[in-house]
């Protein structure tokens, strides 16, 4: 059984009285440990697919299961708890809280667990170690470069050891060198830690780092 199963997924946005279809009957299976990239023109629904997978949005029709749990059938409250445990989200613009240090930003998802302060510290140190930022743990986002901020964002995404990492254009705001480092890091997470990753990107070079590149255009998903 695949880790992620998407069946007949349909999403229609409503703007005033106008209906804007995004997908119509999309099907997809993602196996545990896969690293997939998703490409497509702007407005094709790439980010929407990520949001639906993360349970941040509801489909118009269709079914999504992740690790056997039916995401589309969950209530808002259940979704938040599920997301905290199973989804690591990496944003294009890092979205770190500027008032918290790198350590505190990475610790945020762990505040939702029953871990003790000492256990949280150990987990955060490990995550920062994986992304190579142990020496920057006391730095605030404004004291970090874009690449370092994104690495903190990735540490935050992996600190609770989620089932899946969803990355929404993780290199979109970075220079070529930093982007390469981030892609190498994601690849390492996939290869060394067997993390399942779905990455949305506009960059063909970045997409090539995944096992497989998928395309989404006019509501049709092709692998």
């Amino acid at each position, binding site marked *: 059984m695949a880790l992620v199963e998407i069946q007949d997924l349909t999403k229609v946005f409503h703007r005033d009285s106008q209906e804007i279809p995004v997908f119509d009957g999309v099907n997809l299976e993602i196996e545990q440990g896969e690293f997939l990239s998703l490409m497509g023109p702007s407005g094709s629904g790439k980010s929407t697919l990520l949001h639906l997978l993360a349970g*941040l949005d509801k489909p118009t029709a269709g079914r999504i299961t992740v690790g056997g749990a039916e995401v589309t059938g969950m209530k808002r409250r259940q979704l938040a708890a599920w997301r905290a445990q199973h989804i690591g989200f990496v944003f294009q613009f890092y*979205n770190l809280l500027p008032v918290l240090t790198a350590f505190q930003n990475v610790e945020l998802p762990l505040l939702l667990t029953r871990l003790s302060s000492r256990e949280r510290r150990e987990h955060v140190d490990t995550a920062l170690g994986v992304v190579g930022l142990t020496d920057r743990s006391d730095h605030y986002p404004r004291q970090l470069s874009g690449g370092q901020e994104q690495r903190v964002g990735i540490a935050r995404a992996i600190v609770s050891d989620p089932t899946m990492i969803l990355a929404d254009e993780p290199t979109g705001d970075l220079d070529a060198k930093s982007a390469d480092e981030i892609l190498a890091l994601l690849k390492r997470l996939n290869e060394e830690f067997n993390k399942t990753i779905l990455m949305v990107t506009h960059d063909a070079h970045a997409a090539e780092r995944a096992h497989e590149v998928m395309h989404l255009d006019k509501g049709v998903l092709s692998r």
Partner: protein
Amino acid sequence: MKFMRLIWVNLLRNKRRTILTVLSVMVALFLFTTLRSVVTALDAVSEVGSEARLITRSATGITFPLPQSYFERLKAQEGVQAVSWANWFGGIYVDQSNFFAQFAIDQDTYLDMYPEMAIPDDQKQAFLGERTAVLVGSGLMQRFGWTLGQNVTLQGTIFPGDWEFTVRAVYVPDDPSFGDEMFFFHYDYLYEGTNGNIIPGWFVVQLEDPTAAPTVIDRIDRQFENSSNPTQTETEKAFNAGFVTMWGNIGFLVKAIGTAVFFAILLVTANTMMMAGRERIGENAVLKTLGFQDGLLFRLVLVESVLITLVGGALGTFGSRLMFGPGNAVNSIIQGFRVQWSTVILALVIAILLGVVSGMVPAWQAMKLPVIQALRRVA
């Protein structure tokens, strides 16, 4: 507790705004605590006083004295157990700002009528046995740091000249509303000091039976009705209540001011929290993406709001308590005026309520925040 750091950093995110809001709440709650204490003290003063004692004063006004001969005539009234008299002195101790009430009393009859004042026997005898002796409230002793045997000079205003006294006795009231900052001395001393040019300011009449008060009052006032000095008699309690009404409808005024201040501060705090909430739309969306529950975000915003108002409220109300604790200067103007713990607790409850109400809208907005739209705004 693990979320306290998140709340704390959010509070300190815009230090100037937080400090200004805390100061606003502090001033408002300081005002509330102080004004409320004024009302409480005035209410207590209007309640203090015995139903078994009558005050007979000139019908023309409290500042007009009554003939000494009334003493015997009042004593002869049916239902009257004892009679005494007193005068307002109105002296200045060192400086005009050191105001306290001073009374010349008929030392032989007055103290027996006021069991509310606890005086050690030896001190009472020392007071009664010396013409220039003075009986002082414990609060006044504390306020000026006086000691027994100390000489105190008052500069007369109604009765000119320097008046020398020796502190011989201290009373402790059985109820703070009675007042612990009064100054009693011998009427004889005032009589001699003014070369006999003085007559009683008012009479205090002790009743045999308090329930007979209306009848005795009527009888006294009718007796002097057609004299050159008609009287107005009322129970001591009614007299004190009437004295309080001379302040005007303070209670209404204070409540009106308190309500206006509450709503003004509510708007200030609500505005602060709304601004803070607006600035954090993106961050709240990120927190929700990380798995923060709607209810948790609601509570975090609400706690933040309550912390602001509670800190401000605590500073204001404890500041008022410190400034107007026992022995404060206003106590001599309004007997028993002090910030009571019950008022402090009420002010803190109001501070919490203020925080909850002003944080409700931004907390609700954070809870109901549509994550997708908010994330798009961040992007």
